């Protein structure tokens, strides 16, 4: 008997009393008794001064517990299907997921309402507002967005950055806001300077929120948000406008201006002259790089993280049509890229710390600290492809290459790719 297979199931309970707040992620929720026991073991340990962090089972199952602000307990349960040895990798994924889910709850409801727990029934009702966002995070595994995992905002390098940047700054200023950004296909194409100073995880969550809002089909909306770290108790207004299908602009602002005024007056003023540029951006699509940047033909997919600005961009070059039987498919490439990222950061590279201070010691930390010398680069040769990871003080680069590239050439390919992108785009 197996109650949980495949996808991740998320349980949310109150930390003190163990009242279930919601469960998401599986069509067949776990029986109440199981939920109760999962909560119970953690509470029991807490009484003895032992906090239970995670658990791994044969077949790659994993359970991770986290308590946020002493008020809410989140439990993620992932079923088998993966090989046993990927337990540490799975743990990182689940830890990030719990971080993000908690972030979502705060983003939508504000920290006060969740922490005080005045009325559990009302909280349960209110939490429904974040379900769409949480569901997006849960299914994000299949998508081409890496931010949930890396906690670095996915970006897109537009062909004419200066133009968009200028328009963005002007638009934000006119809307009495310092934070604004242009989102193309869920990635940041241009943003104001202040936006870049938001916490990386907040940006990732806002991008996810914008994605769910634009899915709803409305051309504009005015949504109150709390920023999990910079403003967890005071709500801001998120104004979002659809410029073109796939292209959204948003600003974080105070009480003014009204949505109507911004939409009717400012939008056209700043963005209508740039429609062609926006179309160019949309044309780039998932490639994320302007056509001017030449890339080696044999790179299947790559992800580049700027460790200072906490932005990343990633792309998969495998053709979506007529798949080459030798090369992994497009979807598989995304998956491999994510897996290789997790593999590298759990074992060798520095990873972005979890933004929430409690119980952040993950089991991979001790392994990382066990190295007496600093790992710089690493590679993997699997049966499907070759992976190469590289870390400098400013960047992290992850590459997927076909098996036909000789192993000893991987390093120069990686170095070349990095220097090419950095010099031509200044990323």
């Amino acid at each position, binding site marked *: 008997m197996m109650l949980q297979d495949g996808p991740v199931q998320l349980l949310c309970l109150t930390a003190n009393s163990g009242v279930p707040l919601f469960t998401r992620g599986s069509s067949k929720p776990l029986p109440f008794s199981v939920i109760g026991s999962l909560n119970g073991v953690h509470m029991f340990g807490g009484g003895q*001064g*032992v906090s239970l962090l995670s658990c791994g089972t044969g*077949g790659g199952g994993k359970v991770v517990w986290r308590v946020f602000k002493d008020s809410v307990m989140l439990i993620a349960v992932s079923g088998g*299907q993966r090989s046993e040895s990927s337990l540490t990798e799975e743990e990182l994924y689940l830890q990030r997921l719990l971080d993000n889910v908690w972030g979502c709850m705060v983003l939508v409801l504000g920290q006060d309402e969740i922490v005080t727990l005045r009325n559990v029934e009302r909280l349960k009702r209110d939490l429904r507002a974040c379900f769409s966002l949480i569901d997006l995070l849960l299914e994000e595994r299949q998508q081409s967005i890496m931010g949930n995992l890396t906690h670095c905002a996915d970006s897109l390098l537009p062909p004419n950055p200066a133009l968009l940047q200028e328009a963005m700054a002007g638009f934000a200023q006119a809307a009495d806001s310092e934070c604004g950004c242009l989102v193309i296909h869920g990635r940041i194409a241009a943003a104001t300077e202040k936006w870049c100073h938001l916490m990386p995880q907040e940006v990732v969550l806002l991008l996810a929120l914008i994605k769910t809002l634009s899915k709803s089909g409305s051309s504009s909306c005015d949504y109150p948000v709390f920023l999990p770290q910079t403003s967890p108790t005071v709500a801001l207004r998120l104004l979002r406008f659809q410029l073109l299908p796939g292209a959204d602009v948003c600003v974080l602002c105070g009480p003014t201006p009204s949505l109507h005024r911004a939409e009717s007056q400012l939008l056209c003023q700043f963005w209508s002259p740039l429609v062609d540029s926006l179309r160019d951006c949309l044309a780039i699509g998932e490639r994320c790089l302007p056509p001017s940047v030449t890339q080696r033909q044999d790179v299947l997919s790559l992800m580049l993280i700027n460790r200072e600005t906490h932005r990343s961009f990633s792309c998969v070059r495998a053709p979506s049509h007529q798949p080459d039987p030798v090369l992994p498919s497009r979807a598989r490439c995304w998956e*491999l890229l994510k897996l290789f990222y997790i593999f590298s950061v759990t074992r060798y590279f520095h990873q972005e710390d979890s933004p929430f201070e409690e119980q952040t010691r993950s089991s991979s930390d001790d*392994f990382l600290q066990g190295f007496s010398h600093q790992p710089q680069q690493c590679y993997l040769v699997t049966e499907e492809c070759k*992976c190469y990871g590289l870390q400098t003080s400013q960047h992290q680069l992850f590459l997927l290459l076909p098996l036909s590239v000789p192993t000893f050439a991987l390093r120069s390919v990686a170095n070349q790719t990095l220097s090419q992108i950095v010099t031509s785009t200044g990323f």
Partner: protein
Amino acid sequence: MSSGRSTQSPVIGRQQKEESGSENEGRKSDGESSYCSSNDLEPEWLDDIQKNGELFYLELSEGEEDLALTRANAHQQVSTNHVRFSEKEAEILTEQHKKQHSNSRAKGTATLKRLAKILRRKRRSTLRKGKDVPASILKNQSGQRHGGTVQKQLKEVCVYLNPKRLSALSVPLFEDGGLLEALLGVIHRPSWDSDGMRREDRLTIHGLVPNTPAAKCGDILIGDVLVAMDDVDVNSENIERVLSCIPGPTQVRLTLETLVPVDNAGADDAFEARRMKSSPPVSQLVRLLWGEDTAELQMSIEHIPHIVMYLSLKLDSASPQDEEEILYQYPVSEASRQLKGVRGIFLTLCDMLENVTGGQILSSSLLLGKHLVHVGYWKENNNLLVIGLPAERVPLLYLQTVMGDVVRTLKVMYSSLDSAFLEADHTPRLDHFFCLFFQQLIQPSRLREGHPVPPMDTSGTLFLDGLPAVRWLTLPPEIKMEVDTVLSDFESSDFGEMSEDYFGLRRMYVILGSCLFYKSYLIANHLPKEDLLDVSLYCQHYLLLPLSWEQRVGQLVVWREVFPQQRATAAPGFNTPQGRYFLLIVGLRHFMQCVLLEAGGCASPAVGCPGPDSIYVDQVKATLLQLEELEGGIEERLSAPPAPCLSCADWFLPSSSSSSSSSARERLDSLASSSPVLSKLVKSSSSPGYRGRSLFGERSRRPSPQRSLSDSGSEGPEGGVGLGTSRTRGFSPHSSQDSGRRIGARRDSLGSGGSEGSGGSGGLFKSPRKHPNPFHLGTLKKTLTERETDDMYNMKLSSGPDNTLFHFLLMDSVRGVFIAPSHRDVSLLSGSIHPQLITNFHHCCLSIRHAFRQSLPAKGRRGSGRPQSGGWGLGPVKEHGVLFQCTPPNWTDQKKPPPTMTYWVIGRMLLEPIPQEFYVCFHDSVPEVPVEMAFRLSFGLNL
């Protein structure tokens, strides 16, 4: 003195006091010949056999230097002792060095007869050694002592006393010795005046009882006078009272009056030096093996949470007895208190998670205050084994391997977890077992304090012990053949007492096979792989391998019933005979032979719990004595320059001060001149043709052993400064362009394009120069002359002009052996960075091997076509490498940034033609193709 080589003076004088009428004369030290036994039929280990037939007998011998010193001292001072004391007391004999005594001469002769009898069937040389060596000892000892004076001195000795042992012993207290004899192990015979009055109440030590704290501590000498205990003055009247006040296991400090010679300053110094050196008389490791001192060791890791529990999953709610579900627990101390408190978590999780995720629980992570603890689970029947280990010692990646090894060791020893844990009388043995287990994992360095073995870091211990393989030492073929012959002779059981004709009975045991260790290296193995792994797991766990690395094993006899895992789970279609299996391990000095015996089957079935049969033990000893002849050859191989050659990481970094830089250079020079191999490698050409041929021995360019570095320097500037240039290259961080160019050149030189370099080993065989298949050496080996084989040992693993290889490890999964540079090779290359590099290498290998293991279950899936997306992670990993950067420690120059050195650690898994795993660590200046290196290595060492 020829006796010095084959005889060992024991640290512990074991006394057989009841055997002769005169007590004081009965003092005798066994093992003055490592073969000697106290009388014809009773070997000295006989008393140690436990009720269930198991035996773990370990006796140490002092190192040879100590022996020589002892002997020198014996000549100078001992006789004085003898004279003086015999005036005062009845028969105080100078047992300071525990030489054998006059009346043991008769026994010794008897033993010799027996020895000779056995050895007669063996080779001449052994016979010779066996015959004259002990005899010479007997002659030499008494006569040649000359005068000197002694003075009395006080010394303090700490011993660990455990009154609880007395009850465990279940032997009635020694009638006359009382607690002094039973607890401490000191024999004191009060002297009486002629009128029957006690003359003296000083506690002169007249003898030591074997296997007691006093005997084991090694610092209490016969003839010493016990003055005080924990600063309380003691005499023969109050000693019993003082001792009876000791409530539980504790350490006491004894103050002893001892005699120190003053006549000869030199001897005095030497004597003192010896005393200083042996001040921890017995290493922690040995004390741990003897099962003493565990309390102290356990105390030192008290602050680190760890636990092992065997829990029952069947909770009987009818009897609400507390802690009933704990079937076994260790340690019972502060370290385990919290973890024991939350055992409910383990039970619940084990019970519940199977239903939730569809898999047995394997591990969980807990945070205890600041300590992150990983808990491993192993469920068997209705019971659950839980082991909690600190995360900083055992990474989660490797927890499963550790669990698997423990469980397998327990199963080998007790056949199943249930039978190991459920029997009450196993508890003390399991306590010892897990004490060793935790000590090894949590403070491995402590166990090996002051040993020649380089202290092993936790990662190294974890990685090397976790490999399903044993460290192998390749021997020159002629020695290897000799060793194999001797072993085969032994295994054929073709000796009188063991043959069926001799007694007309079925033989007791069939020898299934044996393996031979020398200084912790496996040098010959006649066991199937799985049996070898079982045996080596046992040896690893009981630290027998590091033990035999030391000089000090006087005699080791281990006997126990084992349950080899391969034989327990017989393959379908093949019925192994329903026999019982016994493991016999005999160690003599650096040699250790493990023999797997079978009872039942062809041999007579075993009844009850048979103890070790002395005939078999003697035969193994005889075999080992015979092998000692080859020791020279093996030592030579061990002290030979490492093959393949290794570089030290520090050579690639400029030192912070010029003096140490020059010293590094000198060191290199001296090394190069001392080893012709290095100088040869320094200048080995990088042309592909040369490299291709060098594999098979480049005879025309083979340098004579006398050729030094300067010689090669004059030959060609490039070669001579090979290592020098590499050092300067280490200054600058590697530029990508540069490496790209070099990679290109390398590609050309390989003569293979595209992916063949590392994509598969095929490329190597496709190249126009015809390489013979390295893995089928059969025909090739025959044609190789001795000289060529010699050359093969002198190979270089890395390519390019410099030798860039730092470390390597090649594991052959089929034979269950691995090779790696020997301890000596590593210690030879000591620098400030190199040890760090080795630690890092091992740590990284943990990760690499973990990535490989992921691909093993996937092997079955290879036929099933392409992997489904969303399936199983990254998929099978064939090769994995990590590039590390290091800077010299304590860089003093503030103006310049510290120089950096980068190196690769690469692991490669080869599935064909035989599964092998290869781990290598080399400097980053030359791009290497690991598969090619593995090929060179496995070929050159003809594993």
